């Protein structure tokens, strides 16, 4: 047994003199030393500083974030089990709302008094939800709620006391670190709204049974997902980052060839890049639902019917939104 050998060695060596003791101890200890060194190395590596401002390539994708796509009224296959559902006609943004669009909104909304500053947070009014006291349900009362945290380390929108600006290079990336209230407020300000889950899914899928907006299979060049090896990720250091909206449009960027991955109605990024808040408020539940998967999820979460949800105050560098009208 290891420890009794050690015990015996120490005792007998102690009788024989210090020199022998050292030799014996060294001969017994190599494995624990290597083990401890390995553990220390692991801890150091795992605690390595992540440079959130590491250089990032900038690309103009050529896709207009102000464009809207028409989705006609009618039936479509909803959910994994292909239930038949239908929607009225609506228009939906071709891309996610960009950081530049959101900064523009904040500047206008602050001037209008639609949003206000509360320390390092942008807050805005929400009229509240009906509370039914269902298990795990939490009250969402009328009042000011967090739209955007400005003190989040991954927040790319800055406020100098007067104006909101976007960190250079991130202008055409999807707006992230925005709560459901912040997404709801943006769409409402422009007299639009967040899509319902059905509207979102129909816009992503069209009227057939495809699992991905572009078809049946997924390749790394279709979308920005976990370990998809796009030009914006480095899994050895900072991990995944968002890609500019409309990036996966068939263009090549510095030799990185993408596949045109638009949905049947011409929408981009309906799978991967960022989860997208949807607008449904369900009875007895304060959670809000997200669709589309993100840069941080495996390809299985990019299937059009996959749902994710969080409290409406949740924000993350992997969650954004788009609006419908």
């Amino acid at each position: 047994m290891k420890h009794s050998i050690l015990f015996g060695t120490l005792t007998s060596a102690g009788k024989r003199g210090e020199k022998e003791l050292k030799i014996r101890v060294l001969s017994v200890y190599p494995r624990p030393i290597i083990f401890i060194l390995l553990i220390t190395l692991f801890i150091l590596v795992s605690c390595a500083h992540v440079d959130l401002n590491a250089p990032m390539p900038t690309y103009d994708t050529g896709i207009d974030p102000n464009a809207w796509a028409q989705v006609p009224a009618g039936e479509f296959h909803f959910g994994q089990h292909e239930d038949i559902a239908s929607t009225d006609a609506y228009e939906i943004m071709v891309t996610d709302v960009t950081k530049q669009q959101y900064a523009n909104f904040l500047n206008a909304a602050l001037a209008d008094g639609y949003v206000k500053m509360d320390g390092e947070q942008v807050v805005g009014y929400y009229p509240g939800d009906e509370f039914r006291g269902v298990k795990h349900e939490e009250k969402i009362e009328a009042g000011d709620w967090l739209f955007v945290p400005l003190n989040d380390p991954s927040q790319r929108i800055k406020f100098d006391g007067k104006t909101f600006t976007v960190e250079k290079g991130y202008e055409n990336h999807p707006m992230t670190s925005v709560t459901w209230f912040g997404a709801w407020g943006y769409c409402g300000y422009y007299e639009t709204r967040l899509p319902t889950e059905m509207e979102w899914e129909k816009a992503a899928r069209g009227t057939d049974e495809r699992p991905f907006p572009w078809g049946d299979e997924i390749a790394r060049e279709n979308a920005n997902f976990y370990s998809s090896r796009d030009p914006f990720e480095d899994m050895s250091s900072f991990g995944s980052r968002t890609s500019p909206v409309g990036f996966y449009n068939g263009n090549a960027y510095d030799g990185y060839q993408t596949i045109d991955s638009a949905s049947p109605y011409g929408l981009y990024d309906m799978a991967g890049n960022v989860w997208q808040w949807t607008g449904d408020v369900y009875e007895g539940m304060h959670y809000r639902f997200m669709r589309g998967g993100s840069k941080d999820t495996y390809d299985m979460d990019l299937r059009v019917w996959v749902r994710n949800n969080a409290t409406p105050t949740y924000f993350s560098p992997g969650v954004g939104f788009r609006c419908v009208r």
Partner: protein
Amino acid sequence: MKDRLNYLFTSTKGLILVAIAMISMVTAVWGMLSGPMAEMGVRDWVIKTFGMDIVQAEREGRIIILYHSIAMGVIAIETYMVTGLLKMKAFFKTAVNMLITVGYILTMTFGMGFAYFGHNWAFHGLYITGLSLIFFAGVLLCVALWPWDKEHYITDKDYARTKSGVDLERVAFFTTAVTTVLSSLFGAVPGSYYGHGFETFLAENVIRYPEKSVMEYSVIGHLHIMLALIAIMLTLIIGRWLNFKGIWHKFAMPLMILGCIVLNLGVWGVVTPLEPVAHMIIYVGATPSMLAALFLLIWSWGKFAIEGTAHLTKPTLLQKLGAMVQDPLKFGPTWQMLFMNFTTSGIGIFMAVKLDEIFRVWPAREERIELTGHWHALSAIIATIILMYYGDMLGLKGKVRQIYGWSIIFLSDIALAGVTIFEMKRLFITEAEQQPLVNTLMYMIDFGLGMLLVLLAIVMVWRLTDLFKPKGRWTEEAAQELSQEVAK
């Protein structure tokens, strides 16, 4: 050839070897379809090489068949252990072993064939036939274990028994077997409504929905209780192998019986109006079951320490501790049960206590990671305990026994510690800054599980080559029975 087939399909040790080999193959191949293996592109290679037919919409259904295939193999192993350890009529032993062997092989072969290699509906029928045979084997096992047969009464006062002599350990085995058979119905009933009011789903994907159908509740109850019952049965098996007895045994067995019954009532209650209080009943049932396992641990560690230092007049604490861990294959199973409290039970209780305050503030996907990690960890612990008992069955001795036993403990615990930190990472690191930690944890998990599989592969290759020897170890094992190898 006939002798070898007889060894593999009629002797307890041969049957266990076949089941471990089958599970190992499935784990090795299908383990390459997810996680880092998918990231590295290995998944695509496996799919292409084996000609798998992967339809995106059917992922959840495929996974359910995969879980069932592996679980049926594990249940078969436990059944072989029970029939090998406990006294029962020869007819029952032969019938149960035969039925469950045909059952799990049909389930695994044709279930996986149906799920991953195109939808041949004859395969699906054979998969269901396999499950049905396993169910019938379970019913027969219950009959075989009937504890109120005077033939099985005991007189030895060292073991838990009633005044009339009913063996309470046998009652515990019987209770676990009966509740397992009944609990399987909670999965079978929704399955029989498939496509007619019931659709495939993974429980971790519907956790936050306030309203669930009775069928969904039934499946959720089923998956929870089956894993718990596999763990309870394995605890009883380990106790029998180590010859659990004495005062701790007398406390443990009634607790095990009570815990098993209450736990089942709580889980079955989720499909009744008792649903709102079902969790409370489950906690009440889980507590005595876990206490019983703790008593086994206390008794066994004490036994190892005392027996291992019997030759010393005044053993020191260090010497007692040394004796306690002297045999990793006997110390390991209960150590893994203790370790489970850090990776599974402790995390589960912490999550339950802080659910709304912490875990339900995070996105559902984070909670899903915790839930799937939670039961993968429990499944892995069950597997390692089985492998340690199997190591003893193989008759491993000396350095090989030490290396095999400690490797299983260290490798699995490194991996499971990594899984646990991964599950809880959001408590101490943000999404934006997590990647280096995630990478380190993935190395820990992959190294631990990967090396464990390599170790298992070495054992399997050794056993395969042994089968080619005319006087190999298999010839001895063919005549050995587990009940003869119970500790004195």
